[in-house]
């Protein structure tokens, strides 16, 4: 059964990697800063899924915590960039 899991992850991988490259293209090109932060958001949500699937691929339960961090900390980037754009001073 676990070989099938590996196969499923391998079939899904090209989709996620292609999406990753397209998101990075938008992150590099993005004319404005909100565009770039949006692309970084989507990139890390995509990777949260894919890195979690890597735990199935390597058959271990110890690779599960990093994706949750990746998904959460990009929210921190969102909040800080938005606050800077709105008020110029982050702390007030």
């Amino acid at each position, binding site marked *: 059964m676990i070989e099938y899991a590996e196969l499923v992850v391998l079939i899904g991988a090209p989709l996620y990697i292609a999406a990753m490259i397209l998101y990075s293209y938008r992150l590099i090109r993005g004319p404005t800063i909100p565009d770039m932060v949006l692309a970084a958001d989507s990139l890390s949500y995509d990777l949260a899924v894919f890195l979690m699937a890597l735990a199935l691929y390597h058959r271990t339960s110890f690779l599960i*915590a990093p994706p949750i961090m990746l998904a959460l900390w990009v929210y921190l980037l969102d909040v800080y960039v938005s606050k800077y754009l709105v008020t110029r001073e982050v*702390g007030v």
Partner: protein
Amino acid sequence: MNTRILVLILLVVSALSVSIAASLLLDIPVPRGLKELAVYYVSNTIRDTGSPEAVAAIVWDYRGLDTIYETLVLYLAIVGGLAIFRVTLKTITKTPIGLTLFSKTSTKIISLLIATISAAITFHGHLTPGGGFPGGSALAVAAMLIIPVFSMYALLEKGVTSTKLVALRGFALTAIGLVALLPVVRGLEIVTNQKFYPTQILGIPVGGSISLYNIFESIAVASGFIAIALYLSIPEEAYKTGESSA
């Protein structure tokens, strides 16, 4: 602008072509096995340290003394940074601006969840990946989310001041030192783990001193970074209007 993209494409293409050529032409051996020192660490970690996690075992047991000194460096760097900014936070009063109401409501929930997850990472640091450093920095992020969303004054009103945080940090550092020094009273070496601290309490694996170190290190890292963030978020006007009391 255009030359910049051109140079970028040149860089990527040359990196790719050099490595393709090297992998085709040269016979470079790639590593296919663990190094001998690592074999020792991986196979003996449970017997030597009582922790199934080899990284935590190295950080806090095999090379525990290094880590304690590095924690001291961390403490000094933060204290040095705070010494450059000499201002008392009490003198500044201003109405908080913050972000939108939605982000305020949801940041409350998200911070609670982050704190929960960071506690889970810290307390299982001797059994699963994680431990003091990731748990502590995650806890710091929970507080650093509050600063832009509610503004720093919200934290100050609740009594979270950087003086208290530096004091908390000092306490955590003292606790780490005590845990390291305590085996000396029974004539053992400094930073002794298994001969002094129990590996299991009532059948629950606690990993000797490793879990204690993890908890205190997490407190130290979190309070240090929150103190830095609080100092950095003092608005510039506080300096220009001369409200600072240097």
